[in-house]
């Protein structure tokens, strides 16, 4: 494994003033401009990247916060998702031990951020020689400016809405993975994030670009402590921008697993652009956080592309988990599949608002949606909402949505073979999530996910009988 150059430099440039908590929700515009400068210079970024951030900030300031009346927002409890930009503080280290989900074994490359700072970066030498890149985004911008300029902001993620624009302006933890044309990466690329242990906010930016006929599996795993981070009632906020670009005939398998602290409010703004005959699979595993809202857009603008968006979640307590998705077809003969499966206990609640949008140019599209919610407690609930907006006449679309308890027949079948109810329930719940969890391209991580989900749901839970 070859070591990358020191990932983050000149941290001493960060001003102490920026570390002080701001009392107001929104800093004055002038203060935000200074903040962008501080972040950019603290990460030793080239001028063009600082300018790019400023442009994003101007967009953000010109865009109102969501009113809460939009379809994509009206099911989100507003008091639980902070509207603040001041929290984009420079990375801080308070010496607390970082939380890991797991340590990858077989890997092509590894990047680890702790509290927003890159602490470890490694890349297998043969893949490095083959042109694979995995680096903190600021460092990549310095060392490979042409590449980063080509891909950064190539999707509409930085223009998604005010949060998306702020995410582009204010990120402090950046990840860039680049796969040159034709390179088939044999093992997964890992990006690990340990949540700031002092409970400060985190603005993260993930950029994955796979050139034509390349293939890569990228796994992001983010962890905070299993309980709360803060005791002052202020939710730690995480904003995660994800840009995925698969060029013609490229193949990206992207998996993101989060177990943020139980008091975290997490918002994801993700856009995947799928090229001609390209394939992309986006797996999302949500376990932690008080509120986890993921907005994921699949852009199928080229002929023959295929995208899968497969999410699972495990909710407990008062957790609120949202998947706001859009399968946007404007290219000919492309296909996409949304599959969200979740298990909910206590009084947790889930929302799936999934739009299939087919433009007039999207003839011969196949697009499917499945949303399935398993409720283990009477107080838990889910709203699966499939939306079809179709302007082409030669397409295949379907959607299925379900909310319900564990099947009494399944439990009876397993029990009829001598399996005790608690184990039977565990098997049914594990099986329910298996279709998505088993797609994660790392056995060790799958086992970790199983354990985390069982702990999260306190399986065996109360067995639901008729």
């Amino acid at each position, binding site marked *: 494994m070859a070591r990358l150059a020191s990932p983050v430099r000149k941290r001493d440039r960060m001003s102490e003033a920026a570390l002080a908590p701001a009392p107001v929700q929104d800093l004055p515009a002038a203060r935000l401009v200074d903040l962008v400068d501080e972040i950019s210079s603290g990460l030793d970024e080239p001028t063009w990247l600082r300018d790019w951030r400023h442009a994003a900030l101007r967009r953000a300031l010109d865009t109102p916060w969501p009113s809460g009346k939009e379809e994509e927002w009206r099911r989100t409890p507003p008091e639980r998702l902070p509207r603040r930009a001041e929290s984009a503080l420079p990375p801080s280290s308070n010496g607390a031990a970082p939380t890991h989900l797991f340590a990858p074994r077989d890997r092509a490359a590894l990047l680890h951020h702790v509290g927003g700072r890159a602490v470890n970066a490694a890349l297998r030498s043969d893949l490095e020689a083959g042109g694979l890149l995995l680096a903190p985004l600021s460092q990549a911008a310095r060392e490979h400016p042409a590449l980063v300029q080509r891909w950064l902001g190539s999707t509409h993620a930085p223009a998604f809405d005010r949060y998306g624009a702020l995410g582009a302006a204010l990120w402090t933890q950046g990840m860039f993975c680049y796969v040159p044309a034709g390179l088939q990466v044999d093992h997964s690329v890992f990006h690990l994030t340990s949540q700031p242990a002092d409970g400060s906010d985190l603005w993260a930016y993930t950029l994955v670009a796979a050139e034509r006929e390349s293939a890569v599996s990228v796994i992001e795993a983010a962890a905070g402590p299993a309980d709360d981070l803060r005791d002052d009632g202020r939710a730690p906020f995480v904003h995660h921008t994800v840009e995925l670009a698969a060029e013609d005939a490229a193949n990206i398998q992207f998996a993101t697993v989060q177990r943020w602290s139980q008091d975290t409010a997490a918002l994801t703004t993700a856009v995947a652009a799928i090229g001609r005959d390209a394939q992309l699979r986006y797996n999302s595993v949500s376990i932690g956080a008080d509120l986890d809202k993921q907005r994921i857009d699949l852009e199928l603008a080229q002929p023959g592309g295929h995208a899968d968006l497969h999410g699972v979640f495990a909710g407990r307590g008062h957790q609120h988990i949202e998947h706001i998705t859009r399968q946007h077809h404007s290219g000919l003969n492309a296909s996409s599949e949304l599959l969200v499966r979740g298990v909910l206990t206590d009084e947790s609640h889930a929302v799936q608002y999934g739009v299939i949008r087919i433009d007039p140019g999207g003839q011969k599209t196949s697009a499917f949606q499945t949303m399935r919610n398993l409720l283990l407690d009477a107080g838990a609930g889910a709203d699966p909402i499939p939306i079809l907006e179709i302007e082409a006449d030669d397409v295949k679309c379907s959607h299925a949505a379900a909310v319900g308890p564990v099947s009494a027949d399944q439990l009876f079948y*397993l*029990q009829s*073979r001598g399996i005790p109810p608690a184990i039977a329930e565990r*098997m049914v719940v*594990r*099986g329910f999530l298996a279709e998505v969890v088993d797609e994660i391209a790392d056995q060790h991580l799958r086992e970790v996910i199983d354990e985390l989900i069982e702990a999260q749901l306190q399986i065996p839970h109360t067995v639901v009988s008729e």
Partner: protein
Amino acid sequence: MTAPLFAIDALRVAVDDIQIVKDLSLTLQPGEVHAIMGPNGSGKSTLANTLMGHPRYTVNGGDIRLKGQSLLELPPDERARAGLFLAFQYPTDVPGVSMINFLRRAMSARRGEEIPVREFRQTLNQVLGELQIDEQFVRRYVNDGFSGGEKKRAEILQLGLLQPEVAIMDETDSGLDIDALRIVSEGINAFHSEGNAILLITHYQRILHYVQPDHVHVLIDGAIVESGDAGLAERLEKDGYEPFQTLNQERSRQKGLVTA
């Protein structure tokens, strides 16, 4: 006198306040094969599921005893571990749970301790071979996407692995072509021994050409109206259920007059 292996004693079963099984009694001794034959709606599947303890069915009279021990208060998993088995008419699919994981769990539960991997493998391969089931089969999810014949074979596979003392076979012959019926029947015969008993529940007599019953009972409207040897099945094949249904209606009418 020791208790019979399995006894159903004046059993009454209701579903949603409708009485389905009415004072049904039956005794199985070790080594015996009994067949319960009845037309659609006679209560065959209700009886099978009740014996195994499905929560949907309410027992409102009588008893079910395995080796003298009442099963009524036992949940399904304890009945299974005590030695009872139900081959389902419509086995439930459990997506995401592999057959091999399921079978190992079930075998471990039946014997009361974790079965060693090596022993599990050997036993599994042996029974798979007997039933002419490909090894890849156990990599699939439980009953998920199985054809009708595959589901029934999977039930017989479980029968062979779990070695229950009493096996209830609910319409195991339905939906099978002639070759599958032969293989499934051979599986039942291979399982059968002097130490266990089998209760075949069926609409048609054709499986009885392969699995010879010692006793045949005719189930009409939730009650056994006639019992006999294998010859009774042949009579059913010739005459159908109608003579028994007529007989039953006659009896009910008489009963009604008595109670009126």
